[in-house]
């Protein structure tokens, strides 16, 4: 019962993160929304692992944690470079590669 509701909560968090990613145009907020989405995915894994009483869910959580750490460090470096170059964080301003 608790696991089902935890899955619903994971879906809510993922949806909120997706909405944030689509709505906000500031690169920093888009990164924050990606973090929220990753959290929702981790919650789904933990809930599933708790439901079946297996440690695999927490192992997947560890991998997601590693992925988030690597992703966020590189992405924040890119954000810094973009800010030094364009003096803005608006994602619509970075359209130099538009075909």
């Amino acid at each position, binding site marked *: 019962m*608790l696991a089902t509701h935890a899955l619903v909560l994971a879906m809510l968090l993922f949806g909120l993160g997706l909405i944030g990613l689509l709505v906000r145009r*500031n690169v920093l907020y888009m990164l924050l929304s990606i973090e929220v989405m990753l959290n929702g995915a981790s*919650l789904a894994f933990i809930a599933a692992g708790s439901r079946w009483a297996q440690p695999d869910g*927490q*192992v997947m959580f560890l991998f997601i944690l590693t992925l988030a*750490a690597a992703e*966020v*460090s590189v992405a924040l470096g*890119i954000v810094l470079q973009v800010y030094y170059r364009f003096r803005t964080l608006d994602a619509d301003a970075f359209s130099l590669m538009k075909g």
Partner: protein
Amino acid sequence: MELLFYITAGVAVLSTVRVITHLHAVHALLYLVVSLMALALIFYILGAPFAAALEIIIYAGAIMVLFIFVVMLLNQGPLTVEQERRWLTPRMWLGPSLLALLLLGEVVFIIVAADTFTVETVGIQPKQVGLSLYGPYLIGVELASMLLLPGLIGAYHMGRRLSKEEP
């Protein structure tokens, strides 16, 4: 236990909504920290204490500090001090503090009344997680190390300042 879960879930959803609707980056980060702490409490309730500890230490500790570093780096200049004074008014951190106090109350309740209610979900101890991680999932650990090294080099490469002659 059910009630604790629903209260924590409410805190998590509320703070996440505030994250994606807030206009100031520092405020949104405060709410995101509250959201991560609520999620850690949910992990604990679901019977994953190791994941809860890692959520606090790595997400709320390390990754949020990275975000705060970048927010502060982007706001250099003489206006920063005045801006921060404007950002950190008492009214502004009232919301995150109330939500965090709610979480703290739940944690205190769990510690005090731990014996009176039974945990319906069976807990998975860190030992089992470690045995599984370095047993069947060893290839995943190797892949994670191969991911972290490019991450380190990439962050070092991207984090340097541009030279003067570039626009």
